[in-house]
């Protein structure tokens, strides 16, 4: 059996089950974040009289705080490599990418390290978010007034 055949054989057997497991785990973890997020929003609304719109913003801040702290403690890298999209797609992923870049490059100095690498990973989300938000916004203004 040559290398290519072997590769094919490996591909045929291993990843399918792993993909299924990954997908299930992402669904479960992502769903759990949505669920607990909703619990926090409801608590803020009913016990603290926060408006729904503001409650979502508070939730966003809490999630970023928690994810950044967990990244600093060193737990999050492991979890992300296991749960992948379940932790990358929620706001936790954004916070994780900013904090881990900050921690990793801090040793290279305040400007050339921390400053220039701060948005190394989250930069594309910011860039394409602002570009698409702006142009779809302009389209929205044109279409809906």
């Amino acid at each position: 059996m040559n290398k290519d055949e072997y590769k094919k054989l490996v591909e045929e057997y291993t990843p399918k089950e792993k993909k299924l497991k990954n997908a299930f785990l992402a669904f479960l973890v992502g769903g759990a974040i949505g669920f607990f997020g909703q619990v926090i929003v409801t608590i803020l609304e009913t016990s603290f009289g926060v408006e729904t719109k503001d409650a979502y913003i508070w939730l966003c801040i809490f999630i970023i705080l928690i994810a950044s702290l967990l990244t600093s403690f060193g737990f999050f890298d492991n979890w992300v490599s296991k749960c992948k999209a379940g932790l990358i797609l929620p706001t936790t992923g954004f916070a994780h990418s900013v904090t881990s870049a900050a921690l990793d490059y801090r040793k290279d100095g305040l400007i050339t390290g921390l400053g220039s690498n701060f948005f190394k990973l989250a930069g594309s989300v910011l860039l394409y978010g602002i570009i698409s938000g702006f142009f779809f916004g302009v389209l929205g203004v044109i279409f809906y007034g």
Partner: protein
Amino acid sequence: MIYLNAFLLAGTLCLLGELILDNTKLTPGHVTSLFTVLGSFLAFLGIYDKLIEWGGAGATVIISNFGNMLYQGVIEGYHEMGVLGLFTGVLTKSSAAIATSVIVAFLLSFLFKPKN
């Protein structure tokens, strides 16, 4: 049942992301950017508001909500200040997310060392 909806919506979006990650060569950076753009596109179609109505926090914890907030900021800015508002408004709503992650990450980088 808003809690179940939140679970299902956030879970399904993450499942979609995982399927893209596992079956294509796209990296997490691609997928998060894609979802952000998708979020502002869905906001443009008027769908994102409905998703939030149906799934509550399930729709707002996902990065696509970042695109939605950027879109809403542009629209709100236009209604308040006209054309100038397109530029001043775009970052208003998403400011909480950007500012929090910048401030927190900056402070934490002085307190902690990277683990690996």
